[in-house]
């Protein structure tokens, strides 16, 4: 059911997803199992005389406390997984994203503009996003990341494209007629190939920030 | 069904015989619940005001200097006085003094009218200064000031609508008193109408400092 997760934050999100889905399945099986069992066992034919039980306080406490603990744990891992994706590494490369009805535009630090998102592999990216008209949603399904893009405000998103590939980028917030067609590609390339592309046809050249410390920084989280 | 025994409600004590008697408490509860909805309606606007004030403290300050504090203060006093005549009218009804009640109630409606009159002069003077939603003068101002004036017109406007509705309700009450539908033994309608009028007053009590004073 889940996508093959090529990226780091995708892994964090997938862990949360796996835990909650797993717990959900167990709880679901317990509830539905008990229901089916009772319906079978205490059917009118099998069990003609009902027993009126008014309640059981220890039981009430158990099935209040255990769910509370469970959801607190879910909250905890969910929050931890999320907050990691919001920390901006010092050596992140900034890409400016401009959304308008109905297309995306990307601008690199050296002024290079494009409507397809080319990214160097292994380099942390910080997107600074704004919209020219209504609210749009910057959505990268394969990276499990999403952030709304607002007019007159700048929002941000951090990305670590670790694997090469060609991924999709869609608009997740309804923005009018061609909302469904506000769609482009994310192409993750080896750094040298990316540099060749980003430095072609512009005045300033762009060098990638040193990304060697990224790994350690993330490990320290 | 053995457990449910039929019985005449009259044989029972304490307040459960509401089916036979008018339920003054019930009517008041209902009215209070309605007042809460009015309160929360304005609460939404107050929330918007608070947020934008927080975002643009300086602009709100400057814009606040432009409103007419004198008009605002007089209007506050007018509304407070109308609340007084309202309760006095109910008090007179309780004591069975029909014409006194009518006089006070008519006074309340009149004060409401005066409030609206002053509001009219205030708004026209501001509009003459070019301060109205979408006006060129306003669009040249900063975001915070546009928001202040937008909120000013929306909130005092919505309040004025409530004053008008309140006056219509009170006029009906006046007719009811004259026809005797409201009398010394049955004045709950007047009381609930009074509650509504006071709520309008309370909302103004908060609008007044936010638009005229804090600057």
């Amino acid at each position, binding site marked *: *059911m*889940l*996508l093959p997760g090529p990226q780091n934050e995708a892994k964090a*999100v997938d862990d949360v997803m796996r835990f909650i889905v797993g717990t*959900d399945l167990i709880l679901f099986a317990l*509830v539905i199992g008990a229901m089916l069992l009772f*319906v079978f066992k*205490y*059917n009118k034919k099998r*069990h003609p*005389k*009902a027993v*009126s*039980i008014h*309640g059981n306080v220890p039981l009430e406490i158990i*099935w209040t406390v255990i769910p*509370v603990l469970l*959801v607190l744990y*879910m*909250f905890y891992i*969910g929050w931890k997984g*999320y907050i990691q*994706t919001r920390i901006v590494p010092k050596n992140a490369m900034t890409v400016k994203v401009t959304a308008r009805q109905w297309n995306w535009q990307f601008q690199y630090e050296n002024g290079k503009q494009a409507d397809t998102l080319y990214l160097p592999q292994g380099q942390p990216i910080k997107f600074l996003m704004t919209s020219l008209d209504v*609210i749009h*949603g910057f959505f990268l399904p394969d990276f499990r*990341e*999403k952030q*709304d893009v*607002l*007019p007159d405000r700048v929002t941000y998103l951090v990305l670590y494209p670790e694997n090469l590939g060609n991924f999709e980028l869609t*608009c*997740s917030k*309804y923005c009018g*007629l061609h909302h469904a*067609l506000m769609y482009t590609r994310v192409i993750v390339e080896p750094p040298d190939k990316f540099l060749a592309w980003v430095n072609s046809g512009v005045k300033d050249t762009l060098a990638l920030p040193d990304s060697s410390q990224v790994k350690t920084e993330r490990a320290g989280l | *069904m*053995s*457990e*449910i025994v*039929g*019985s005449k409600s009259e044989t*029972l004590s304490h307040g*459960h015989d509401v089916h036979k008697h008018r*339920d003054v408490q*019930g009517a008041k509860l*209902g009215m209070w*619940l*309605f007042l*809460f*909805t009015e309160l*929360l*309606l304005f609460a*939404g*606007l107050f*929330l*918007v005001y608070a947020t*934008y004030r927080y975002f643009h403290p300086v602009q709100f300050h400057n814009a606040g200097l432009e409103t007419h504090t004198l008009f605002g203060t007089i209007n506050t006093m007018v509304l407070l006085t109308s609340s007084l005549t309202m309760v006095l009218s109910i008090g007179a009804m309780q004591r069975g003094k029909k014409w006194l009640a009518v006089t006070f109630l008519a006074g309340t409606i009149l004060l409401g009218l005066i409030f609206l009159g002053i509001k009219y002069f205030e708004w026209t003077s501001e509009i003459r200064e070019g301060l109205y*939603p*979408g006006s060129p003068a306003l669009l040249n101002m900063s975001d915070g000031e546009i*928001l202040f004036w937008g909120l000013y017109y929306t909130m005092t406007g919505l309040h004025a609508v409530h004053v008008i509705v309140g006056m219509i309700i009170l006029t009906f009450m006046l007719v009811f008193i004259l026809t005797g539908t409201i009398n010394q033994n049955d004045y709950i309608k007047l009381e609930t109408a009074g509650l509504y009028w006071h709520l309008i007053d309370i909302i103004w009590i908060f609008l007044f400092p936010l638009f005229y004073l804090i600057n």
Partner: protein
Amino acid sequence: MADVAIPPNEAFANSYLKNHGKRKGILAWILSTDHKRIGILYMVSLFTFFTVGVILGVLMRLEMLVPGPAGKLFTAQEYNALFTLHGVIMIFLFVIPGIPATLGNFFLPIQIGAKDVAFPRLNLLSWYLYVTGSIIIIVSLFHNGLPDTGWTFYIPYSIRTGTDVTMAVFGVFILGFSSILTGLNFITTIHRLRAPGMGWFKMPLFVWALYATAWVQVIATPVLAITLLLIMVERIFSVGIFDPAKGGDPVLYQHLFWIYSHPAVYIMILPPMGVVSEIITTFSRRTVFGYKAIAISSLAIAFIGYLVWGHHMFVAGMSTTAQFVFSFLTFLVAVPSGIKVFNWVATMYKGSIDLKPPFLFVMAFIFLFCIGGLTGLLLGSVATDAQLHATYFVVGHFHYIIFGGGVFIFFGALHYWLPKMFGRMYSIKAANWALAIMFVGFNMLYFPMLVMGAEGMPRRYFAYLPKFETWQHISMVGSWVLVIGLIIMFANLLHGIFKGKVVGSNPWGGTTLEWTIASPPPPPENFEEIPVIVHEPYYHPEAIEVK
């Protein structure tokens, strides 16, 4: 269970259906202040709009026949209008008034032993407001183009679009007042008109659920009213309150919208939960397990439900603090729902279960509601919500919970109370078949949405990537299966209402007050003598008592 000794013929001759005072014909209905007649008025109008809503839903599924933008049944503009209207109709015209306005109106006074609601004329006024608001919404369709904002009316799009949003929003505004009036009427009724001896903890659980719902209606709806009013003001006078071009903050709009619209989802689900408690006890032939836990958890849901609205805005540009607080509170709201589910299942324990259609509906409800609720947990966690927000996963979540939970129980409640309301019985066999078909169709329709959502299919898309084609097709076929089930069900119910076998006053062996009066109930006072309550509800004398 001895039926009360009212021969059915006499009951029919003296029912609220026949006796209508001075007026004749339609006027005797649309000017009636009898809560039972108003309940029926609501029911007829609600299901009319529901039919419109479902047809729009099926049309949306048909749109998914081919993936890309070409060769479509509807243009993008038409599709955008379709989901807007579908959402507005389903939410504001159908599920929000839903059970309280129809069955609540009909049974609340009877269940507490009252002759009517506290303010009968206000009750009629609510219905008129409901009809007026609905008509305005429908008219907005034929005026200046169909509104195309989604049911959430997000600013700035909703103030930029050229379609007639103002009118649609005005319609919803009026509907809000209808809802408020119903709520305050119910609160007052429950406080003032309980029969002698009916203390708070002797009320049926349906009444508890309606009470909690009514509070949410009264306390939350005004915030929606002001929000919609501001959209109108913004569109007409362009004062700039939410318009970013003039310094306004669109995220603040979302706060105001969800301050109402999240609590509103509990307006939709609390009454069905109340019905579930009624049905389970009746067909398990025993008292309810954990009466107080269920009653109090209704209040808890209403209360905590007021604190979590921000979970709709996790990626909208809120502060990190707010994301933290709202995610935390969202998880807490799941607990009282869990308590209810556990107590319901425990009520089946050692019962003597009679698998009649209403009970089968409850079983379907528990199944579908749990899926809906447990998927809600994935949305409540910020990490996974950043992935799932605004995808088909959300669409799947809320259809499971609103349609699978709420609306299935609405149907179940109809099957439960229809014999009481009309004195006749539908075909049990047809009802079971309809449910089975609907259950299968439902899961075929919505489970694929959960899968597509997790794989990244955004919502409100008229076109989609070819990789989703298989799932979209399964889902589309599911909608047809569901339609078949629904048609069988409605046909069966309608046949039951007019032609069904006549039943006595208590066909199921229910123990709440409505089963002590004739079917159909007498006009307009319900009870010849106001009953005195001595037992807690759900007292089944034939069951073995355990202390």
